[in-house]
């Protein structure tokens, strides 16, 4: 899905092709929910993020159509700005607040997989994966931490899987990087799997992002 201001649609498309998932880029006004089994809301700055990140996109007609898909049990994935749109629209619980250090942060992080019953993580063999983050409003918050814990799919961790505040890049509750609904078909994540899907551009040649997108194919 491309909203005005979306920047990562081509990257996600390329990664899906790499993972052998049938995909196309659709502009927000041209979206027909009946044509697709899954939708990805990629990263970027939808409508410039000029209010709260994701809030304008969340109130568009397009998101109403995405909600229809969600009600039918289809797959909805939000990456970065897409995650922000999902929480702004109420498709996922919680909120994404400005990073604790109040600035944009772009870097590679280690992630621990907390749930394997979601569309992206089912059958995933690796416990620790690596991919980059790039956001200024990525601090996940929920007023009920135990609920948040139940939803959590990925945690920011150290290289050996240590869940520690020092590996938390934005101040997220419980180091949470990604959550899903209980059914596991709606997922939001701050890290960018599409940026860890190509050998050449991954610092150590690993393509952990691809492992997640392949989960989409298995669903």
């Amino acid at each position, binding site marked *: 899905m491309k909203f005005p201001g979306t920047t990562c649609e081509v990257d996600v498309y390329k*990664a899906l092709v790499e993972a052998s998932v049938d995909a196309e880029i659709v502009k927000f006004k041209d979206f027909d929910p009946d044509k697709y089994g899954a939708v990805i809301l990629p990263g970027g700055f939808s409508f410039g993020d000029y209010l709260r990140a994701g809030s304008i996109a969340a109130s568009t007609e397009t998101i109403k159509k995405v909600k229809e898909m969600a009600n039918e049990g289809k797959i909805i994935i939000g990456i970065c700005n897409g995650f922000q749109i999902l929480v702004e629209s109420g498709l996922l619980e919680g909120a994404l607040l400005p990073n604790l250090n109040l600035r*944009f942060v772009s870097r590679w992080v280690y992630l621990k997989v907390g749930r394997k019953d979601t569309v992206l993580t089912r059958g995933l063999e690796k416990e620790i994966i690596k991919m980059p983050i790039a956001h200024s409003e990525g601090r996940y918050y929920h007023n009920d931490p135990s609920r948040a814990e139940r939803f959590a799919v990925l945690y920011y961790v150290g290289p050996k899987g240590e869940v520690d505040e020092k590996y938390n890049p934005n101040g997220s509750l419980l180091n949470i990087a990604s959550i899903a609904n209980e059914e596991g078909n709606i997922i939001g994540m701050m890290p960018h799997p599409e940026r860890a899907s190509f050998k050449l*551009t991954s610092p150590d040649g690993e393509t952990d992002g691809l492992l997640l997108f392949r989960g989409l194919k298995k669903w």
Partner: protein
Amino acid sequence: MVKLTLSPFEMEIARKRLGREPNEAEWATIDALWSEHCSYKSSKVYLRSFPSSGERVVMGIEDWQDAGALDVGDGWAIVLKLESHNHPSAIDPFNGSATGVGGIIRDIISKGAIPIALLDMIRVGNLNRERNRWLLKNIIRGIGFYGNSIGVPVVGGELSFDDTYDDNPLVDVAGIGVVRKDKIVPSVVKQAGLKIVIVGLTGLDGLGGASFASRKLSGENEIGAVQIADPFAGKIVLDVTLSIADKVEAIKDLGGGGLVVGVTEMANGFGAVVDLDRVPLRVSDLTPEEILISETQERMLFAVKEERVKEICAEFEYYEYPCAEIGYFTDDSVIRFRYRGKEIVNLPSELLVSPPLFMWEVRKHKRPSIERPKIDIEEAIRKVVSHPDFVSKEWAYSQFDYEVGTSTVIKPGEADAAVIALPNGKLLAVKGDANPDLCENDAYECGKYIVAEAYRNLATVGAKGIGIVDHLQFGDPRKPEVYYTFVEALRGIAEAAKFFNTPVVGGKVSFYNENKEGKAIKPTPLVVMAGLVEDKLLRGSIEEDLSIVMLGLARDEMRGTFLSKLYGNFGETPKVRLNEDLVASELVVQGINRGKILFAKDIGRGGLVSALFSILVRGYGVDIRSNGIKADIGDDLLVKLFSESTGRFIVLTKEPEWFLENKKGVIASVIGKVTKSSGVLKIDDKSLELSKEIDNYYNYFFRVIEND
């Protein structure tokens, strides 16, 4: 009325050539077109001496379109452009730097090219001053704000500090785009009758920006000349312009000088008729003069065949972006602007595009050399590596979305050059270099030095330079000592560019960079070089026991070095031996291709010490034998460690003998090895523990800036 920058002499020329007194709108028009920023009136004559042709040059300096282009094979070209936003950034660093990014991006897309990378080269004054910290913080935020929002990765850059930039920071941004060679869109029309279409709203910001950039900062009431950045609008312009690029006849960014300059330059000798009433406005009460010269961002001009106007505008209207036909090109060579039925500008195109050209007086400035001071080597090592010029810039680049586009192969902070994957599978390396301290001492050698350094930087990742864009930043050109450095720097760049076969495909001149007391900045020419990875890419890695091989000769030429900056200018100025840079670079690339090199670093600012420090900060130690370091002065450790003479590298290898056998005229010697003693620099029998300096390396900016 906005302040004019025309001199009485120039006004007299205009009157004479026109045969009458221009009206107010016409004066504003002439002022914008004849501004230094738009006309290059003080530099054009000399710029013609740059080597601008070559087998890869698709679009060069003579065509001087909005950007230059180089052939990268398989039917693809890269488009290169370098610009600064120095004056606006001094007043409003956030908007100044953000619009600098926006302007570069629009120059790239106006060629029909997809922007794939940005580099930012920032120079500010000492961070002990609060104002400089404020400037830096907002410059970085501004670049991130714009670059991130439009999805173009910042892949590299420089961050450097010197008191000379106290009132006048330098914010240079380079942009790189890719385009099919046969799809490059011109910036000028080739026929009359085409319609002129403008997109975007015209507002009150950026009034007289080009003229503002063509005089020194006055410190009063200049905020109106700064443009306001709107990256969301910029992203729409980017997406839609690329989608319609092959349906229009010409594209031009509305940058310096605004509409009047855009239309006149696009007409390129043809005439034009424009109705200012049809220009979509952000506020309703703009005067016609303001509409003419406003530099509001996120506007583009298209030359469109009549039958396609609707189709073009429909694409912008999908995003509710304003698009309007405002006039047409004529074949009478007269530029006409109308407002409310009245013709307010009627000027021959010839007058506007041919300003009087100047070659100002030159005078060599003699700088005394001091006696060599007593320098404690250990103290000097600690001082150099602790300087903010040499510490990690992670604080800055982590604010940039450098991974967007999934094509950034060598990332910021990783090596001496950034590497980006091109659509044809080739790998493009890019690097920007400047050396104001050397330029202040000898601008000619400095011109050669920065080109040679860029060439070496590219070699360290396995690439060979193919072309450059330059940016010449100086004080007031009418001051003979300033103009002398301009002429000399240009001569040096031209000579080196010719030598390395890296033609100058575009560039920019920025004069009037002075501090409040009217003192010019240190001359700061800058080049950005692009190159292609020849065969193998080097992604550096370090391990214990690797041999450290030094290529090249350290020379007793300490003037203009970083050490001289700290301890006073002593000794002779470096002479750049271009051939040494070439052969040593070729050896490095060959070593990479044969798999003989695990890590390579050129020896530049800070000398051997700063090159070795890059090994230490990666968690290793080094053990050096000083008698292995070849120098032209026998056993002078200071020269061996801090000389910045060119043509030199250090490479880490398991097979040092390969370099000694294959050096072909390059001086090569084993100077030591990598050890596991993290943070320890051992020179002969003396060990230096640098953990404090390494901590400073990683945390300096976070500490200095974030704790404000």
